[in-house]
């Protein structure tokens, strides 16, 4: 049995990617299982999905503890040590990143890096990485044929999405690296869940303590000359992280901003534009 664990953020298509891989494996006469582990159902929140493939029916229902392969759709996820839980020297990880991380990661296996984001934004026009990641996975691991993945797209996506997604997948399959990259490994012990208070009470605005800024692929850029200081952006911000600065211009705290773009949508004078994060 082969086990693949996907790590992504809500909206990047990790769950759909896992289902697509399941369809492709099924088309190759494998018994496949694909299932998600939803966290909070919000754009940008960390999401996991799981795929198993075997030659006989699969009975196991536990989440994947010791993945043979890891699909990491976003390099900001590397901050979460659990992403690498249960891996070893044999594990193959594919990472959406131009280059290897320049800080130590909790991993000892083979890491393959490829910049899916740029190509996805160029070809799909949106930061959705699943089909690109699957092209990379197929190339690096050979677990599934490119052809089967293309059929899976055609059988499961609306027709208008076929061409761009297949183009992205083929391009990454053709151009992706065949050699693992070098990185700094620093293995750490995983944290235990602390005991909660019996009442489960939380103080007001407790979400503001979460640094959700690393969920973002985009950030709002404000034109201070255009801003008419109406504050509508602050009203709609789901993180409540927009406040007026000394001049009264409304600006987002980028350590909290998830890059959802609601502020840019509601701004009556179009003073806010969403910019891609470097």
């Amino acid at each position, binding site marked *: 049995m082969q086990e693949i664990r996907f790590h992504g953020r809500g909206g990047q298509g990790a769950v759909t990617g896992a*289902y697509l891989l*399941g*369809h492709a494996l*099924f088309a190759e006469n494998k*018994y*496949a*299982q*694909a*299932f*998600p*582990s*939803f966290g909070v*159902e919000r754009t940008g929140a960390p999401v996991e999905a799981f795929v198993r493939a075997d030659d006989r*029916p*699969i*009975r*196991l*229902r*536990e*989440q994947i*503890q010791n993945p043979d392969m890891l699909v990491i759709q976003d390099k900001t996820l590397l901050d979460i040590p659990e992403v690498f839980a249960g891996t070893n020297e044999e594990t193959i990880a594919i990472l959406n990143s131009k280059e290897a991380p320049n800080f130590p990661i909790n991993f000892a296996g083979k890491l393959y890096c490829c910049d899916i984001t740029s190509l996805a934004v160029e070809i799909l026009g949106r930061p959705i990485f699943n089909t690109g990641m699957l092209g990379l996975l197929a190339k690096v691991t050979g677990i599934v044929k490119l052809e089967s993945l293309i059929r899976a797209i055609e059988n499961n996506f609306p027709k208008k999405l076929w061409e761009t997604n297949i183009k992205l997948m083929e391009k990454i399959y053709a151009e992706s690296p065949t050699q693992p990259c070098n990185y700094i490994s620093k293995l750490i012990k995983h944290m235990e869940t602390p005991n909660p208070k019996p009442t*489960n009470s939380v103080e007001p605005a407790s979400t503001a303590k979460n640094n959700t800024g690393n969920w973002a692929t985009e950030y709002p850029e404000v034109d201070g000359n255009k801003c008419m200081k109406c504050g509508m952006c602050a009203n709609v911000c789901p993180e409540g992280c927009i406040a007026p600065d000394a001049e009264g211009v409304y600006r987002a705290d980028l350590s909290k901003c998830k890059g959802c773009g609601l502020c840019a949508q509601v701004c009556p004078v179009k003073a806010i534009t969403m910019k891609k994060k470097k």
Partner: protein
Amino acid sequence: MFKKKFLEGSQAIAEAVALCRPEVISAYPITPQTHIVEELANLKANGKLKAEYMYAESEFAAASIVLGASATGSRTYTATTSQGLLLMTEVVFNIAGMRLPVVMTVANRSIGAPLNIWNDTQDTVTVRDAGWISLFAENLDEAVLMHVAAYKVAEKLNLPVIVNVDGFILTHMAEVVNMPTQETVDKILPKREAQDTLDSANPRSLGTYALPAHYHLFREQMHSDLVNSQKEIKKIFAEINKFNPDFTTNLTEEYLAKDAEMAFVTVGSLMGTVRETVDELRGDGMKIGAIKIKSLRPFPDEEIRKICAKIPRLLILDKNISLGTEGILATEMRRALYGSDSRIEAFTLGLGGKDITRKDLREIAENQSDDKNVNFR
């Protein structure tokens, strides 16, 4: 007769329900049941499902709508979970009391507070005593055929049926599933022949006032019909078994239990991981087996007594708890096995979606503890 497909659980269940040709569907969406009713709405919108589909304003309304529709003789369907099932509770008891053959999927989920959307079976055990037949599916193949069986059982006995599928673990699991064709389902499940129905041309009332003596008799009849339903359920399971031999006939399934000195006992999808763990432990030389219970109501006392007669230790795995005592399955097993020599140990695990791994089950089998009645894992 069957076609292998790769489907998400909710889609497979929705397609299976559609194959049963329901006439009235009403539901209110709630995670993790949502995909089931969305898919049914899709089938209706695409003209592949002939049913009336009524989007209700709440679960209480959804249950009331299928109650009324079923009373007029229609084949009806609803689905819910967790807080939604609790909101329905009053109607759930009334559906059973009026002896209406409603079929409902419960995509098992925990109960708040704290708010939690993930899987355990606390929701369905809260309506254990309502008078419904309550079945549990281990995998998608079983879930699909159990819905077909549910309609046949319900309409034969005038008892409503809950089909329990573990939320997320089955509803959001895409796997290879054997889907029966329409022709096959039609062979198993004839059109509902309702008696004593509500009809405006011939007005009658249903569920009316019953004085103490009369009420007592009604309940007694429900009770004995539910006890006796086992025979009919097995007959219908046997009929479906002819189409798919993996769909077993009894209300229990044994796994390597014949010579076992110890056996896990559980319901639903957990059985898959249990089977894998038993294989591993057998490989280590442990004489261990497992028993799957497919029906909480009726509870298959006789079958259990027969299987467990020679198993000295039973490890009961519950994904629910009657707070202050133990899991419901554990209590049911103690009742069914009263006076037997088997030692029963209760474990509550996996509440609110906490993953249950082979490692957890191995620890339960290997580290027997003598001084705890309920072990929280």
